[in-house]
């Protein structure tokens, strides 16, 4: 456990309560300004013209017609766009710029993927720019593209490291092959899914403003202003402090706004070229080809078990498509290794380069598809043995992390199973698959485990307390729309002993203290911890002021003997001796006092020294404990026995994720994640034409996400869990775990309903029909 102070619940405090969003009014009245809503003087509009072909060379570009159009200010191509100081197309450039893709459009005449930007038109209105972009005449010398890893011309290779070198490609424990070969039960199955796109409500948007030749301000739809600042600083060559990035509100991201993509950089360069602010908002079709995607992939899961259902061996291999430059694959194998007590494990990855842009993290990257494979295989194991799916999981319950050998910092998975089963009515489940019917529907119940790591992270916050009893608290964090504004206000109010309306929390600006990206579920725990500690810093400063103030009842007390509760400083041993902070500050003419602190999250909190020195791929394990949230999802489906349509008719999620900061926003977060997972299980799919390597359904009419009618009333509960090892707030974060295991819970319910095991997502009616339903 860290020596840092730990947050504890305040009597009558706000933390944990279902407080409504503090920014809700701003949003529903339209006052909340998103990245494309800053009406700067002289603002111009940028629109991208993109390539119809997926591979080839630009032979010529004729911009005459476009440039002549009314209102057009500039037509920028690779021939005239201002050069960048650094591009990500070399290994060093990629590292220095921290860009997600090792290629920058409009720097050469080569075309590598369909809808790659080839020109950026700047005009006085969006309409003028949009029209002019259609008039840019480009001639191409097309070549035959490779569409994906299934393409006969695609060459599979071993990337050694995946997720851009951040994760190991190979892992091996024990003797998995031998163990599998000698196991009485041997299950081998292939799990596949297509490309998924994030499609947040707010498309990627940038408003770039060069306030001076060496000073840039960018209003950006990003999950992390600091990371955007670092990329733009490296690419423009400006010192970091001369690049300011502002994101006050974000309309979702799901990972696609976790890094800085080419359209942002191109907008910055366009603004430089025209000497006026430029705003660019991607169109919905462009959202499919501008900010990454979850890669199309195939997983082979081999599970060996003893006759009584104890796992002996897990072997996981994955094949997926990557771009011409990068070795990106979601690290699916981590959760396969983690969830159960397997004495042996092995994983490997194979990639193939194709004419696609680089894929990227998408909600629960690795854990979402990985859990689909392992959790369906566990269901197969249960079915093979005629054992209840929860029972098979309990037989293989991991009492510690078998992958690292570490003890868990906390784990409430058994409670999640028990409570989930109770809320769901699991005991009513007929053990036999395909045996429950209601009229012309098969009814099935399925469940799956969920888990997500507490990644190593850190961030800084500032708290300024005023003598009149209000406070401003700041961190350069992002609110994806999930409630960061609200929960941080709650934490600050409790930490300062103030009513909620006396606290204002500010975020989303690189001029504020540095916070991590809102991604990987790290933001809630990291930012809340830094705020709590910054508030402690305020109290320490005030205690120091009190003990040297002759008029204070605490004069000459030792600072360590003084404590604070509800804004009152007093002696621990003699609580009557003390005073309210306001009295102290007014008397001393201290108008305000500022505290600052760095909050650590994950292994770095438990053992800062170890985390500092650790191999970047091992940082999460640098502490003494293995740190994860756990949960269980329960799903009931109704499968139309004639038509093959699947509808989710009941849902329960029970999650153990440490301290829950706000019961309402947390519930919404879990519901949203589960719906995200249901979408991936039943309907989401970006289709790439095999010959053109171009998407055929890049719009929200054809790329289906669930509508209200697809989703039943959902039940969410959190298990009370106190974890002293993970951070000062005991918060694990819930953004990703919400969707881990969801697709498996749905597929397991479909199996239970129909007796047919479907492993190729999404489970659309055609696949259900072709599987052959029992009559």
């Amino acid at each position, binding site marked *: 456990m860290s020596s840092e102070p730990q947050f504890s619940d305040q009597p009558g405090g706000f933390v944990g309560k279902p407080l409504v969003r503090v920014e809700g009014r701003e949003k529903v009245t339209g006052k909340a300004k998103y990245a494309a809503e800053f009406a700067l003087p002289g603002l111009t509009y940028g629109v991208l013209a993109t390539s*119809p*072909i997926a591979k080839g060379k630009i032979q010529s570009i004729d911009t005459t017609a476009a440039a002549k159009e009314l209102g057009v200010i500039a037509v920028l191509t690779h021939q005239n766009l201002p050069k960048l100081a650094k591009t990500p197309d070399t290994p060093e450039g990629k590292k220095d710029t921290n860009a997600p893709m090792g290629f920058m459009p409009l720097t050469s005449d080569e075309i590598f993927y*369909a*809808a790659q930007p080839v020109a950026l038109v700047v005009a006085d209105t969006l*309409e003028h720019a*949009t*029209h002019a972009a*259609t008039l840019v005449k480009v001639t191409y010398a097309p070549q035959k593209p490779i569409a994906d890893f299934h393409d006969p011309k695609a060459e599979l290779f071993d990337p050694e490291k995946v997720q851009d070198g951040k994760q190991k490609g190979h892992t091996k424990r024990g003797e998995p092959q031998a163990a599998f070969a000698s196991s009485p039960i041997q299950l081998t199955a292939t799990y596949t899914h297509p490309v998924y796109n994030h499609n947040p409500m707010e498309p990627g948007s940038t408003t770039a403003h060069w306030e001076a030749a060496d000073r840039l301000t960018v209003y950006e739809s990003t999950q992390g202003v600091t990371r955007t600042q670092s990329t733009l600083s490296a690419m423009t060559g400006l010192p970091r402090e001369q690049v300011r990035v502002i994101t006050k509100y974000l309309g979702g991201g799901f990972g696609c706004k976790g890094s800085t993509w080419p359209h942002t950089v191109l907008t910055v360069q366009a603004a430089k070229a025209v000497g006026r602010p430029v705003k660019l908002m991607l169109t919905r*079709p462009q959202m499919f080809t501008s900010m990454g995607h979850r890669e199309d992939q195939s997983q082979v899961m081999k599970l060996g078990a003893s006759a009584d259902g104890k796992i002996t061996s897990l072997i996981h291999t994955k094949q997926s498509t990557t771009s011409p430059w990068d070795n990106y694959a979601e690290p699916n194998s981590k959760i396969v290794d983690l969830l159960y007590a397997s004495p042996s494990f092995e994983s490997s990855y194979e990639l193939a380069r194709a004419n696609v842009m680089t894929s990227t993290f998408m909600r629960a990257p690795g854990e979402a598809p990985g859990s689909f494979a392992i959790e369906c295989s566990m269901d197969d194991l249960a079915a093979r043995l005629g054992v209840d799916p929860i029972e098979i999981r309990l037989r293989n319950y991991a009492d510690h992390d078998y992958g690292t050998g570490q003890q868990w910092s906390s784990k409430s998975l058994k409670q999640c199973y028990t409570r989930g089963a109770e809320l769901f009515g699991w005991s009513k489940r007929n053990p036999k698959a395909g045996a429950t019917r209601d009229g*012309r529907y098969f009814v099935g119940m399925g469940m799956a485990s969920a888990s997500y790591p507490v990644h190593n992270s850190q961030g800084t916050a500032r708290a300024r307390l005023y003598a009149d009893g209000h406070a401003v608290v700041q961190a350069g964090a992002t609110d994806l729309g999930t409630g960061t504004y609200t929960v941080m206000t709650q934490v600050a109010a409790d930490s300062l002993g103030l009513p909620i309306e006396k606290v204002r929390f500010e975020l989303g600006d690189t001029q504020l203290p540095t916070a991590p990206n809102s991604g990987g579920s790290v933001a809630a725990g990291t930012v809340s911890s830094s705020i709590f500690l910054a508030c402690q810093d305020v109290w320490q400063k005030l205690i120091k002021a009190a003990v040297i103030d002759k008029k204070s009842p605490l004069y000459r007390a030792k600072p360590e003997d003084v404590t604070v509760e509800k804004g009152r400083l007093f002696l621990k041993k003699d609580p009557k001796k003390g005073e309210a902070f306001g009295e102290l500050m007014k008397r001393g003419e201290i108008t305000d006092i500022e505290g600052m602190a760095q909050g650590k999250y994950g292994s770095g909190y438990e053992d800062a020294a170890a985390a500092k020195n650790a191999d970047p791929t091992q940082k999460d394990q640098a502490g003494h404990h293995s740190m994860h949230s756990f949960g269980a999802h329960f799903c009931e489906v109704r499968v139309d026995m*004639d*038509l*093959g*349509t699947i*509808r989710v008719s009941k849902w329960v999620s029970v999650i153990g994720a440490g301290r829950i900061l706000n019961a309402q926003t947390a519930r919404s977060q879990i519901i949203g994640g589960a719906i995200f997972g249901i979408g991936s299980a*039943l*309907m989401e799919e970006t*289709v790439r*034409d*095999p*010959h*053109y390597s*171009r*998407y*055929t*359904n*890049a*719009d929200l*009419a*054809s790329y*289906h996400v*669930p*509508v*209200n*009618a*697809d989703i039943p009333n959902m039940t969410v509960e959190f298990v009370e869990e106190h974890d002293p090892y993970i951070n000062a707030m005991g918060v694990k974060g819930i953004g990703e775990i919400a969707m881990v295991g969801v697709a498996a819970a749905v597929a397991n319910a479909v199996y239970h309903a129909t007796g047919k095991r479907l492993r190729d997502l*999404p489970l*659309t*009616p*055609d696949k259900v*029909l*072709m599987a052959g339903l029992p009559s």
Partner: protein
Amino acid sequence: MNNFAYTQAASTKEAATATQSDKHAAFISGGTSLIDLMKSNIEQHSLLVDLNKLSLLGVENSATGLRIGALERMSDVGEHPLVVQNYPVISQSLLASASPQLRNMASMGGNLLQRTRCGYFRDVAFPCNKRVPGSGCPAQDGDNRTLAILGGSTSCIATHASDLCVALVALEAKLTLENAKGATRTVPLADFYKLPGKTPHIENQLQPGELITAITIPAAAHARKSHYLKVRDRASYAYALVSAAVGLDVQGGTIRSARVALGGVGTVPWRVPAVEKALVGKAATEDTFRAAAALAVRDAAPREHNKFKIELAQRTIVRALLEVAA
């Protein structure tokens, strides 16, 4: 989207005249489909003639049938008590279309002219014979899961997207068309649409300047006992994978008349007279329905990813017939 002129027509004659003289002109009513097509550069129009001032309204039921003005909104017709009661298949097909917001805007006449959702047609970066005659049809060997298994050609297998039209062809609806001279003609909806053949860009019989003014549907016992069943990838706001519009007149357990049409499987709304014929005179049982439904897909020519529609189409017909026979 290109620049275009806009005018509001005060009479059908004025509207027809305006478009007759400019082959790049188009009528606009709800605009829910047209504006999309223009923004995606799939259609370029020099002039939009707004029809919304015209009085092509009214939902009137008489002993002979139903007459619907072409400018009635989809939502108004779908929820109209006369339609709900006497022509449930029409109401259901309308309410299964698009979303409430779109149905509030979209006109009945416009719906009849909506264009395919084929992904190759909808993206100007792809070749498409329907959009650019002679450019090719990548759908044949590409992403064809949602495309037609009936009525296609080597030039085009784009599915007709409308739900309403499936119900209307089942019930033998007729269109009233008016031209710039004020002359009217009546065309059965089933004859209005053209199979793609080698000219998939020509989708219907409309002559330059001709305007749809009304839809008439004959009254029939099978219309009152009718149903629309739509199978799709999500519960709402999705185009049909397969749909069936059916109507049955059953007397004493025997089918006296039947109407069956399919959506989502044809390049045009696909009525299946062979199925209807096989139903008439038989007992209204699941076995009868199943045997008849098999006739619907005898001529199916599926591609790689839409084979499932052969089975699904039959099952959809059977299920829809069971619904009305119940």
